[in-house]
Every structure is written in C-alpha cells, then in structure tokens.
C-alpha cells in the first residue's frame, strides 16, 4: 500500500494544528502534561495508548470541547478563541467524530447532515440536501436518508456521523475512538471510509485501538501514557522497534493474539 505521505501533490509540513505545552487536570489527575504536538496539513496522526492515558482528552481539547488550563492550541497559526461566536466559527472548520456517534436522535439521517450546513454555513436547503445526499452516497448509505438514527446499525450511524462532519467542508477531522463502540463486523466499513479520506489528503487526528489502521493509513503514530506523549514516530518504525518500555509493553499486550 502506498503511504499517504508519498503523495507528491500535497505540500507537507505546513502546520495546521499546533499544541504547545498544554496542561490539564481532572482534580488530582494530571491528564495532559506539557503536551507538544504539531499536525501538518494533509497529515494523518494516529494517537494510541492505554486507557486513561489522556488520548481522548487530547483529541477533545483540539476543538475545546475540553478546556485546558495552560498552554496554547493553534489552528492555522491562530490561537483558539474563548467560548463564544469565535469558537463556534472555528469548530465548524474542525470536524469531530465521536465514539458514541451522537447523531441527533430527533432528526432523520439527511437532516442530521443538513442541519448545521443550513444553520451554520447558511447554505440553502436544496444545496444542503444535494450535498448531504452526495455524502451519503459516498459513505454507502444513500438509501437510508429518511430513516432515524435509531433505525440504523452502529456502523451505519458512524458513517452518517462522518458524512455530517464532512458536510461542513472541514479543514481537519478529529476521531475520538470511532470504532470502539462497534461490533467487530462493523469496524471495517467505518475504517474503509476513514482510509479513503486519508488517501484523499484530509488532515486527521485519530484516537483508536485499531493498529491495522495505524499501520496502513497513518503518517505518524503518537503513543501516549499517563498524560504524556512518549513516542511520536512513523508507524513502520514504531511498530517494528518501539523505543520506550511503556510502548513495548503496550504493544506486546495488544498484538499478542
């Protein structure tokens, strides 16, 4: 498989998301400790680590669903604004896909995808719907447009959630354990969609336990433990030869069977 970083048409290195010395506590627990992380435009960064290592918090901090105590978070060189209109505007540029899908339960599949297009992007209803249908087509769910989320399987719901995020034409997508709540047979249909996004050059930060996805689609693997980034390397090197004891231990536990 061709690794995405070898795609010559895309400028690499230009930073899109930057975290500088970011810190956060939950009470006594120091969940993010001096986190430094830069994600370039078009890069796919997979964040892995044991549960409780702070990887979900890191992902949620990038669009400030989780406020941090100190440090800077920059999107395209601009610091994240405080809560309010400015932050809302910025969030529209950074899509997010959740572990529990979080589709709007009172809206149909198509309405889930058009709601923010109409209310946030101020697109007309017809335009939003045609974009919505095109995106549903893309994730293989065109026939489900008029169903309610509860009538879909988990894998289908998650694909709708990805389509909903894409409808905003985001500059980057954040995935917070997108396959962790899925039955095994549904994981692949979601990963397939994510792989195709990565191949098209979408900037992605993916928190996951899917090592196969990390190997095949990531430009970099970030390994976190106890609120710190322990390793930040290209996947082939990381999986073949993890430098830290923590990473070796983690990999031996999950790759054994």
């Amino acid at each position, binding site marked *: 498989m061709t690794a995405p970083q070898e795609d010559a048409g895309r400028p690499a290195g230009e930073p899109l998301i930057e975290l500088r010395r970011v810190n956060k506590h939950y009470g006594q627990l120091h969940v993010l400790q001096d986190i430094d992380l830069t994600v370039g435009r078009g890069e796919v960064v997979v964040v892995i680590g044991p549960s409780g290592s702070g990887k979900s918090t890191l992902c949620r901090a990038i*669009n400030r*669903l989780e406020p941090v105590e100190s440090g800077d978070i920059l999107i395209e060189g601009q610091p994240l604004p405080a*809560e309010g*209109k400015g932050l*809302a*505007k*910025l*969030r*529209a*540029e*950074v*899509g*997010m896909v*959740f572990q*529990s899908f*979080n*589709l*709007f*339960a*009172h809206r149909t599949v198509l309405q889930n995808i058009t*709601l*923010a297009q109409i*209310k*946030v992007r101020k697109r007309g209803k017809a335009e939003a719907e045609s974009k919505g249908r095109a995106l549903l087509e893309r994730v293989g769910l065109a026939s489900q447009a008029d169903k*309610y989320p*509860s009538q879909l399987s988990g894998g289908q719901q998650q694909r709708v*959630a990805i389509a*909903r*995020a894409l409808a*905003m034409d985001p500059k980057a997508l954040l995935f917070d354990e997108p396959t962790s709540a899925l039955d095994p047979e549904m994981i692949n249909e979601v990963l397939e969609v994510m792989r195709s996004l990565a191949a098209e050059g979408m900037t992605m930060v993916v928190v996951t336990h899917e090592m196969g996805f990390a190997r095949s689609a990531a430009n970099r693997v970030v390994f976190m433990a106890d609120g710190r980034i322990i390793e930040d390397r290209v996947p082939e090197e990381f999986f073949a030869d993890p430098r830290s004891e923590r990473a070796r231990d983690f990999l031996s536990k999950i790759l054994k069977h």
Partner: protein
Amino acid sequence: MNVLTSNWSTYWHGFLGTLWLTLASAALALVLGVLIAGFRVSPVKPLRAFGTGWVTVLRNTPLTLLFFIVVLGLPRFHITLPFFTFAVLALGCYTSAFVCEALRSGVNTVPTGQGEAARSLGMTFGQTLSLVVLPQAYRAVVAPLGSVMIALAKNTAIAGSFSVVELLGTYRTINELGYNIVWTFVWIAVGYLIITLAISALFNVLERRVAVSR
C-alpha cells in the same frame, strides 16, 4: 340550576376573566421560563447566577405575597398598570420559575453527547439549545408542564382578591343576591374544571404527538 341561569352573565364574565388570566400568564410564564432555563444551563456564569436567583426567589415566595409586592410595590416606583396586568405579571413570573425547572429537568435527560456534537459542528450555544437539546427535552417536559399549567389556572383565583374579575370572585356578587351558597360554588367548580380539563386534554394530545415522532 337556576343559580347558573339567573347569574349567567356574572358567571360568564368571571369565567372569561379566569380564562384570559390563565392564557396571558401562561404565555408570559413560558417565554420567561424558556429564557431563564437557557440562563441556568448557559456557559456564562452571571447568567447562571441570575437564573438560579430568579428561581429561588420566585419558587419559594407565597403567591399572595408576590401579588402584594407587585400591586403595592410597583406603584411606588411610579409604575401604574391595570390590575389585570399586575395579576399577569405576578402569576407569570411565579409560574416561570416552575416552567424553568421542568425544562431544566428535561434538558438533563438529553445525553451530553448531543450538545457536544452540535457544538462540534459550529453551532452557537443558542442554536445548540434551540435546535438540538430543547426539541429532545420536550418529550420529557410535556407531562410536568401540564401540571404546572393546571396549577397556574387554579392560582388565578388569588387575583380575585386584587380587584381582578375572575371566576372564584363571582361568589361574592351571587351570594349577596341570596342564592344558595353550595350551588354557587358547584358552578364555580364546574367553570374551573372546564379550563383545567381542557389543559389536560391539550397536553395529552401533545404527549401523544411527541410519542409518535421519532
């Protein structure tokens, strides 16, 4: 029966008075209640504090006392309004505290992920609340809101003591004319039942409607 037929006009005016008081106060209470509930769940601390203060003061003050404050207090600040308007203010503000709490308990039934998803798509706090959270809170709110509105209809009786024409107050006029006191009150009770049963019926319909959608 002749208590009703001979005093039809008195009853009718009282009934209309109670009906209008209920409708006007309900409208005010719903508008204020939604607003204050929005304050109470907002990310802005002063708004939350104001909302909490509003609910604490109004919910824990006897309604009659509130009527005295409005009717006797506001004129001191050179605010003179018809008694009907004073009554609507007192009833509406008082009831808004209960509406707010019913809504807030409904908001708490909506999973936090719904609000997070809305915010992650760039919706403002107001959009998140009005487009995603409140519509889903609605189904949990219909039944308690019905009870609040029935209580409001019955609370309008207090306005009768403050020079507002309403149903309960008609007993004085009718009693002075020497009619049977028991029957006088029976017909008053029937009047209230018409209004309160209409409210229950309305909320039953609403409840059935939210049950089928989704």
